[in-house]
């Protein structure tokens, strides 16, 4: 049986987008949610079918299920639209459709009383369509196109409550920061296509067929290294890597299910997927670029984890945790080799991507359930919720244990693989990674203890458990968080298509679990009961703590550059220059012409007397001068 049906996985959400978009105001409100959910439901089923069919067939080949020319540039370069099935794209199909479906179902409860229900589901469907199109892209340019579409659907969804000024600012920021990164991506694509004459992944990921001149260098790096660094810039923008991470915490202004789907489980890992997709290129031609990738990953994971420890907005804590976890994935890719045991990092990275999608989506949906009940995002205004929301409590606890890396939950396995991969290649990064494992456990349980235990607050009305339509998706995701760790991931996904036997690296596992447990322990000590220990701790760190709460002032630097430099020092003077120099010059030409003609117009006044006077005066002057001259 062929794979032609896979095209419907992508098309169905698009149809839902079109129907909901055009039919808004005409469709009954409920229907739009069901149309979207039905479409993504069928897509999910088809994705599972594809995964089953693909992974049970023996070959790990790349399969082109569908392909058509969309736009021709010249004789060699053209953009195709198609569907490429290989282990990572099939895996991503499963992840995206699963999380999407859960979020779609959950949203039916969460968004029930919101205006713009149909708009919400139409944008959500647009997002799923774009994300699915991105992962099955057959070539770099198709990926770039869907990449942009993902960006715009993220913009539209962050800006869902568009009458709030902070929302407008956040959506704008998210789009512009990622757009800036995408510029790098685009230039990278153009450079690669110029050197290779193709956009096609099939050719690009067979490095033996390619040749790059590594002789031409620019600032010490070869052209291909620069190209891949620029491509990574695009990935870093979407995946919120330092220093392009600033949009993600603000993106939490969007509805919480949106944060779960887009800003936790799927879109933000697009950067990881991009590097994984081009990994053979990175590995074969640009080891320096991989070094940069690893460094950025390691730095970001620590940086974000530190900030997460100091935040009080539940969604922002989760956002920084997402940044930190993606940093893990990027780090693992950066230290990975190609083929064999050295490629453990590659498998580990994608494994973590897979498990992270489940537990992070669960965390966000749980946060949504909490916010739904208490109507605030500030954890200082929460407490003692375990009594009011018993189911949410259990589910949230499972997610916390998973992200902390406590066995036997999924996060333990994937994190262990990452740590093992980093240990064999780079001891310093290993130290950072283990430290981050401890910090992760600390900030997650800080959140958990404050919100669910601690002193009960006086709520306006008693917080209530969420309805079943919101609980069921959470339960399913919790099952995913608990059991996906047992999947022999290396059997299916590895850098070179050969099965990679994964096994637990016990020393690594034990040390990371010890760190995680101590993180939990500290959190318990600080936050289980109201205590001043945490405040004392904060005081001890002093300015370091303050700058962490201020997110190390990165936002302020950005504002300085954009508002202060670009807006005030470039754009305003330019606009002034245009009006007062260039345009004024044109006006000057006109006024001078006018003036000149004013001066000489008297010569043609039409008055006979004047003409006669000038004529006779002229004659007189000539006659006189002749008389005097000839004397």
């Amino acid at each position, binding site marked *: 049986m062929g794979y032609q049906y896979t095209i419907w996985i992508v098309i169905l959400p698009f149809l839902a987008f079109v129907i909901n978009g055009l039919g808004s105001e005409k469709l009954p409100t409920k229907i739009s949610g069901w149309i979207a959910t039905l479409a993504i439901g069928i897509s999910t089923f088809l994705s599972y079918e594809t995964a089953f069919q693909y992974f049970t067939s023996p070959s790990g080949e790349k399969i082109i299920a569908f392909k058509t*020319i*969309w*736009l*021709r*540039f*010249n004789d060699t*370069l053209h*953009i195709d639209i198609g569907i490429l099935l290989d282990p990572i794209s099939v895996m991503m199909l499963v992840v995206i459709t699963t999380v999407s479906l859960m979020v779609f179902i959950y949203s039916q409860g969460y968004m029930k009383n919101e205006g713009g229900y149909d708009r919400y589901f139409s944008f959500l469907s647009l997002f799923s369509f774009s994300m699915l199109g991105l992962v099955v892209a057959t070539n770099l*340019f198709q990926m*770039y*196109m*869907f990449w*942009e*579409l993902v960006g*715009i659907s993220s*913009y539209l969804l962050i*800006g869902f409550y*568009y*009458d*709030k*000024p902070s*929302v*407008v*600012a956040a*959506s*704008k920021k998210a*789009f*512009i920061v990622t*757009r*800036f990164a995408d*510029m790098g991506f*685009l*230039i990278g694509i*153009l*450079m690669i*296509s*110029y050197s290779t004459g193709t956009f096609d992944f099939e050719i690009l990921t067979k490095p033996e067929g390619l040749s790059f001149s590594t002789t031409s260098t620019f600032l010490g790096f070869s052209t291909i290294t620069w190209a891949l660094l620029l491509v990574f810039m695009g990935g870093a923008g979407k995946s919120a890597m330092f220093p392009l991470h600033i949009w993600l915490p603000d993106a939490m202004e969007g509805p919480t299910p949106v944060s779960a789907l887009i800003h936790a489980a799927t879109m933000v890992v697009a950067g990881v997927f991009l590097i994984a997709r081009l990994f053979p290129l990175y590995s074969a031609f640009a080891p320096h670029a991989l070094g940069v990738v690893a460094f950025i990953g390691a730095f970001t994971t620590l940086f974000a984890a530190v900030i997460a420890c100091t935040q009080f907005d539940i969604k922002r804590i989760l956002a920084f945790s997402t940044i930190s976890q993606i940093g893990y994935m990027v780090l693992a890719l950066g230290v990975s080799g190609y083929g064999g045991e050295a490629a453990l990092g590659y498998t580990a990275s994608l494994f973590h991507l897979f498990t992270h999608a489940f537990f992070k989506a669960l965390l966000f949906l749980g946060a949504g359930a909490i916010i739904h009940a208490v109507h605030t995002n500030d954890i200082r205004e929460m407490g003692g919720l375990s009594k009011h929301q018993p189911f949410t409590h259990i589910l949230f606890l499972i997610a916390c244990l998973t992200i902390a890396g406590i066995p036997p939950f999924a996060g333990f396995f994937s994190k262990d693989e990452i740590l093992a991969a980093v240990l064999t290649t780079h001891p310093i990064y290993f130290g950072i990674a283990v430290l981050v494992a401890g910090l992760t456990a600390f900030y997650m349980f800080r959140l958990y203890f404050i919100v669910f235990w601690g002193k009960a607050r006086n709520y306006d009305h008693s917080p209530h458990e969420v309805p079943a339509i919101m609980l069921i998706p959470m339960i399913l995701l919790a099952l995913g968080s608990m059991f996906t760790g047992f999947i022999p991931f290396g059997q299916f996904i590895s850098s070179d298509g050969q099965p990679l036997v994964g096994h637990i690296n016990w020393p690594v596992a034990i040390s990371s679990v010890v760190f995680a447990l101590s993180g939990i322990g500290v959190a318990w000590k600080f936050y289980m009961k109201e205590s001043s220990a945490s405040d004392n701790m904060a005081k001890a760190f002093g300015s370091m703590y303050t700058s962490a709460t201020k997110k190390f002032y990165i936002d302020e630097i950005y504002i300085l550059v954009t508002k202060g430099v*670009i*807006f005030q020092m*470039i*754009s*305003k003077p*330019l*606009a002034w220059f*245009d009006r007062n120099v*260039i*345009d004024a*010059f*044109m*006006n000057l030409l*006109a006024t001078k012409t006018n003036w000149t003609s004013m001066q000489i117009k008297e010569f043609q006044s039409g008055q006979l007397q004047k003409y006669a006077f000038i004529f006779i005066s002229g004659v007189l002057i000539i006659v006189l001068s002749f008389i005097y001259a000839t004397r």
Partner: protein
Amino acid sequence: MNILIAHIILPALTTLAIMFARTQKQVRAIASGGMSIQLILSFVLLYFFLQERANGNDAVVLFAQSYSWYPSLGISFDIGVDGIAVAMILLTSIVIFTGIFASWEVDKLYKEFFISLIVLATGVYGFFISLDLFILFLFFELAVIPMYLLIGIWGSGAKEYAAMKLTLMLMGGSALLVVGILGVYFTSDVEGARTFNILVLGQHHIPIEMQRIFFPMLFIGFGVIGALFPFHTWSPDGHSSAPTAVSMLHAGVLMKLGGYGCLKVAIFLLPEAANEMAWIFIILTSISVIYGALATVVQTDLKYINAYSSVSHCGLVLFAILMLNKTASTGAVLQMISHGLMTALFFALIGMLYSRTKTRIITEMGGLMKVLPFLSVCYVIAGLTSLGLPGLSGFVAEMTIFVGAFEHNDIFHRVVTIIAISSIVVTAVYILRVIGILLMGPVRNEAYHDFPKARWFEKIATTSLVVSILIIGLMPLLLSDIIRDSMGMIVDKLVLK
């Protein structure tokens, strides 16, 4: 009758009929009816064109006709179209069609208004079908002159100043064009009688010293109307004073005469000088691209925003033409069409919003999405086209240009290309700024709730433009192939010599 002749006769008949109309209703009916037939005619032209090509007719121009006009000087009424002209004619028909609906409510001297508007369009059609430099110039002037009346009489604000400035600057360009055209006419080594026929001139050679003199003249002459830096300043004032439909036609179609002329006259007839001197103009156009975009960021008047962003987008057209290769030039034509549709949509919407809010200053408005959802969504779509979102026409054009520009491998071209690419970020900044201030946020004024929703003629105007943008954006292959096939004639000359 030749279908191309029909393209200029039908508008003429329409204006004639309008003269005899009595009421505003009749004028509207005749104008919209005539331009609807014109639109259909243009699609028929496209269909016939594709038929001919499919039947293996690979002549350079199709539907060619020649009527002798002034034989002793070698002027004849030569017409014919290639793929580029067909695409531009289609654009013109769409824009004039929507322009009629966008000016549905003009009630001051409405007869004269529609007549001038359609005469302007006639000039544009004539320009695109001409193969004779003299006739081409004649039609060029025919398109520019009504603009003076349209802005001066039906405009707003400092309309006399703006009309005068626009006309004078464009006339300045025309003066250069006359010299350039005569230069080409007299220095070409055509045997026997001299001719103005572009195709004939294109097969002959002009001494390089002469090319060096006349290329800048022709390029700047056409460049003025294509908003080439630093000759673009007529655009912000002209657009802001012009009535809606005039802005639409002017930015949508008239500015494209510049790019079209640069490509098909300046570069086609003077290829060697183009090769030699391209770098000067590449610098100017890349300044246009980034300068226009950066200057847009701080504007507050909607029409100024659009005028400056047009400087940026039209700068990209000329930039692409100067890359002197097939891919980028194809992208240039695509960009002309995309920008034409998008900017017409922008100006139409600005007019519609202005008729309700009575202001064009964005900081005085806000929250329009809530009260005018239909128009606001159209505005967002226009904005997304402008920032090059895949699935809309802008993306197709920009990417073709960038890929074409990257075919040059030297540092100079790389640097200017990267400068041009960086404009996509700045574009995103100013587009989202406008959307954020104008459409999002809380509803600024309680009176906004009483705004009339989009009316049927407004919906026709905006929907036709949005659909065109979407069709090109989703299925670009057909259009881009039509243009690419015709580009060979121009570009091959550049490569050979």
